[in-house]
């Protein structure tokens, strides 16, 4: 093929334009970190809007937050943190080149993610039933707070919706990783794709770790 392929003997997983696997791993890892910085700013815009309106309308935000199902939210938080654990275990298995274990842990991560989305769906359905979806059909139990509560729910749906979208994209990445592991591309010498997929998955979890208290735990729930 091309003359430069002769420069390095064929290394599995090494793209032609890199000199070594080490350089390639450094580049792809840095690429994912830069991407995550972008994601921080992306969600950052939403958090900014949230902070402004929560500061202006604390009462309505607390009242609206209290209508969310805290039990389901807590279960979901636990589910997602567990999926981060299985993801970390998948990376560990990849470092050791244990093909079967990688696949088991990747599938476990996807199952937990699916449980999360299922529970999220149940919560969304309840909100539709309660007419808490913003728009002309919006109703709120305390009418004097209805307008501001609508802003809360707009943020709730957009923030959790974008988070869910990121998880669905994560499923796509997991499927690729499963395929590569199945084919034997992932070995103890070349496992950076699993590591990078893990970075992404942990980031999506961290976003939820911020969303959960900001949306569910407002205004002294325990009293």
């Amino acid at each position, binding site marked *: 093929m091309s003359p430069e392929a002769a420069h390095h003997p064929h290394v599995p997983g090494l793209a032609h334009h890199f000199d070594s696997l080490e350089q390639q791993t450094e580049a792809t890892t840095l*690429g994912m970190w830069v991407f995550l910085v972008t994601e921080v700013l992306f969600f950052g815009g939403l958090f900014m809007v949230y902070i402004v309106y929560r500061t202006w309308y604390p009462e309505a935000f607390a009242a609206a937050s209290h209508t969310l199902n805290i039990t389901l939210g807590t279960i979901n938080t636990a589910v997602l943190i567990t999926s981060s654990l299985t993801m970390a275990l998948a990376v560990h298995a990849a470092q050791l080149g244990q093909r079967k274990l990688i696949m088991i842990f990747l599938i476990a991560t996807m199952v937990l993610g699916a449980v999360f989305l299922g529970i999220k769906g149940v919560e969304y359905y309840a909100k539709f039933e309660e007419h808490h979806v913003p728009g002309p059909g919006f109703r709120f139990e305390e009418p004097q707070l209805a307008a501001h509560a609508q802003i809360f729910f707009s943020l709730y749906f957009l923030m959790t919706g974008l988070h869910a979208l990121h998880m669905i994209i994560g499923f796509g990445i997991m499927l690729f990783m499963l395929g590569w592991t199945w084919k034997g591309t992932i070995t103890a010498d070349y496992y950076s794709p699993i590591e990078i997929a893990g970075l992404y998955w942990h980031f999506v979890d961290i976003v939820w770790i911020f969303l959960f208290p900001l949306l569910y735990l407002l205004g002294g729930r325990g009293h």
Partner: protein
Amino acid sequence: MATSTVLIPPRHYLNDGYGIASWLLTRDHKRIALLYLASVTLFFFVGGAMAVLIRLDLATPAGDLVTDETYNKLFTMHGVMMVFFFLIPAIPSVLGNFLVPIMIGAKDLAFPKLNLFSWYIYVVGGLFTLYALVTGGVDTGWTFYTPFSTVSSTTNVVPTALGIFITGFSSILTGLNFIVTIHRMRAPGMTWFRMPLFLWSTYATSLIAVLGTPVIAITVLLVAAERLFHFGFFDPRLGGDPVLFQHLFWFYSHPAVYIMVLPAMGVVSELVAAGCRKPVFGYSFVAFASLAIAVLGFLVWGHHMFVAGESVYSALIFSILSFLVAIPSAVKVFNWTATMYKGAVSWETPMLYAYGFIGLFTIGGLTGLFLAAVGLDVHVTDTYFIVAHFHYIMVGGTIMGYLGGLHYWWPKISGRLYNEGLAKLSAGIIFVGFNLTFFPQFVLGYLGMPRRYHAYPPDFQVLNVLSSAGASILGVGYLVPMVYLMWSLRYGRLAGSNPWGAVGLEWTTTSPPPTENFAETPIVTWDAYDYHAPVEGHVA
């Protein structure tokens, strides 16, 4: 010029496959650069056609050519096309894509597939916007201010917003690719401070793209969600704040001005060094000035809201910070000028554009200081003074830099030389046309003519006619290079690897370069702009 031994290299990136698939599925950064060249040129001429109609309409005080609704759509689509689909991607995606790997001695960008994917994202975003245009257009201004954009406007806001949302990811991913490439792919010996200054400014631009673009993405998404699903983020009826939209919008869109002009500054550094046969004066100052502009650029967005109910204290801080941007910008201008001092100053086409850039950018930058001063800004806000100011930066700055760069690297890209006489002529036409178009607008604005108005008092007609006349000259100036550059692809004289006798890794490989850029990975032992030693193979 080089001697008669110039031959076209037998194997280069342009003859490495001929079919449609070899272009549409290519991962070669040089071919992707050409895909971008074709697409940004298309948007430039679509956006330019809108500008022509705007200027024709403004030739008479009553605005006889189009209706006021059409006029609103024209200036909106002109802004959207030019800002998001031409000015932001032009230099990074065309010249940056072509040059970043070659200038650091790499075979390609770090993520070639992602690079191709970025182009497809750009195309999909562009198609959304073109769809919005042909199905009726949008009339909110390119700034999409709420609540007009979310509640009142009945035009195609959503497809346009989605187009901008989608295209944003193209610039994020291109920026990401450049950052990783510059960090991880430099050839042996190519240290940070041996890099050409174009790379420093590309790096600074990429930082802004990666940090700022996601914010505009989420902002236009909020606008789209508000229109589509009646979510309330900026709706005053629910207690939402339209000015919050302006904050989010300008948090990206002010730094975006630097996304547009920083790469042009990088190009000018290259042109000035090559045109004067001297190292750029104060290399590290120019390099760090790029980073300083990137950082300061994120801290000045509030100056777009001096009249939008911003507190006087915020206005004060934003005003001071806006003045500070002048410092790194002036460092660059002074250093280019100092580079020319006692240099073997050339009058070849790329250098003409560099002169144009320096002069026009200085006028644009200094009038920016007028606008940073709160009191004066209140007087000229939303007048033609603003329009003139940012066109001096974006057209006088960015497009001059882009065209200068395109001419300078054209022999490398195509392997052929363009007609120097025609090129000089059109550079002159563009310079004259540009000033005739936009200088009267400073005066109009100062006299109080508001921007975005379809009609104006007859007193303003003379200046408006001058401006419209200038625009038609400018239009011709932009068409001529299209013709002779295309012509040169087939009939131009062969360029040889280094027609300018310039230094820099891109001039050490053949023209056009082979697909893998260099026969073998270069080892760099010299600083950028090493013009002290005579350049091999060049007869002045």
